[in-house]
């Protein structure tokens, strides 16, 4: 009974037999799936090396979208650098019926097999061997005895890569750029939304305060009706005082006098005694010039003036 089940190790080569995996597996990439170089440069960290990789491989690689990897070799200032096409690896995995979800880790043959002393047969026509420290694929007929390797006996190193599933659509940098821009825009929009909602709340509170402070009626319409009533009252009272001042300004003839003044229901009635039925224009002309609406009636020497406010 195995309590610690180790995951299977599969060698991925485009020309190998279909391998198929339903369980979790580690993948070792065939040299045909990547480019490798050994370089000596006077830098201290892997990070600095990785920045230089695209330019180092620039003249070597055919057209395509590549990802890069590097690790330090056993010798000082010596690095092993890799370039690989994520799409090519993904296509090979699909062809071999290996689900991405089942892959635990992906390694280069260079990092896992550099210690082998004998050639290893990988398919009918090719073998892997190590030449000058580099793991290479060679035609099978060039190697005398290619052994069959039990891949599950290989002790995997920590040098692994993560195959980007969509690197061929958009590279990581651009993706992060797009996401950052969208995230910033979303942040700005929602911040403004928060501020706007807060302003709305403040204004609502101010409006409620206004209603309470001034003892206003519950609705605007009701308050507008009350205002209309007061405005009518104001207009009427102003006109009343204005028209009374006109009446007081009248130059009456000797026998003429005001005998009655009444105001009720927006109507002012004034009676003038001693007036001539045919000659009272000196009374009405002032009102006409002030554009006052009035009617007149004359009975028994009394002129009755009715002014509408």
């Amino acid at each position, binding site marked *: 009974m195995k309590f610690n089940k180790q995951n299977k190790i599969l060698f991925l080569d485009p020309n190998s037999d279909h391998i198929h995996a339903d369980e979790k597996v580690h993948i070792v990439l065939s040299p045909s799936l990547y480019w490798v170089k050994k370089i000596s440069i006077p830098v201290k960290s892997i990070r600095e090396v990785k920045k230089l990789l695209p330019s180092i491989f620039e003249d070597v690689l055919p057209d395509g979208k590549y990802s890069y990897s590097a690790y330090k070799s056993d010798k000082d200032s010596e690095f092993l650098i890799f370039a690989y096409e994520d799409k090519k690896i993904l296509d090979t995995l699909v062809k071999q019926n290996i689900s*991405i*979800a089942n*892959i*635990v880790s*992906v390694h280069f043959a260079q990092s896992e097999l550099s210690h082998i002393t004998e050639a290893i047969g990988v398919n009918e026509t090719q073998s892997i061997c190590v030449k000058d420290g580099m793991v290479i694929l060679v035609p099978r007929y060039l190697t005398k005895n290619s052994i069959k390797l039990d891949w599950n006996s290989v002790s995997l190193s920590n040098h692994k890569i*993560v*195959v*980007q*599933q*969509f690197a061929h*659509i*958009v590279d990581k940098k651009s*993706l992060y750029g*797009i*996401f950052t821009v*969208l*995230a910033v*825009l*979303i942040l700005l*929009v*929602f911040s*403004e*939304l928060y501020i*706007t*909602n807060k*302003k*709305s709340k403040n*204004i*609502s509170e*101010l*409006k409620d305060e*206004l*209603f309470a402070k*001034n003892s*206003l009626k519950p609705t*605007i319409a009701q*308050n*507008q009706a*009350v*205002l209309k009533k*007061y*405005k009518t*009252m*104001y207009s009427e*009272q102003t006109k*009343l*005082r204005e028209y*009374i001042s006109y009446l007081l300004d009248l130059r009456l003839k000797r026998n003429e*006098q*005001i*005998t*009655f*003044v*009444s*105001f*009720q229901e927006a109507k002012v009635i004034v009676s003038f005694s001693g007036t001539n039925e045919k000659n009272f224009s000196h009374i009405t002309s002032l009102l006409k010039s002030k554009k006052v609406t009035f009617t007149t009636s004359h009975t028994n020497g009394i002129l009755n003036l009715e002014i509408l406010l």
Partner: protein
Amino acid sequence: MNRINPLYATILLLVVLAIGMLKLSNSRDELKELEKVYKTTNRLSTELTALKDVYSDKGKVKESLQNILKQPVLRSALLKSDFKKSSVNISSEDMDINSLNLLMNKILNTSYNINSLDIKRISDEKVSFKMEIKW
């Protein structure tokens, strides 16, 4: 080793952004409307308060009328005043023209709400007087 399709992630972010912008637009419209209503309410409240102060302050109107009617020069007019809940009736059956002029001068120069007025000349120097002021 599964990764989310960046296209789906981008679409999701774009949808979130679109929803945010739509909500923001609605929120802005709502704010504009509230500001408009507040301005209207404020203006209305100012006008209404001013007019109420002038015409409906019962205490103020009553006090100032009483002060006018108490004046010694109007004593001879024998004015009667009947204060009710929301109005006052001032009357005199027989007052001289000078008292009438003084009284009318005071009342017309103040913002009272004169509801009715009745002045009848009785003789050359005398009139009868009736007035109702409301608040």
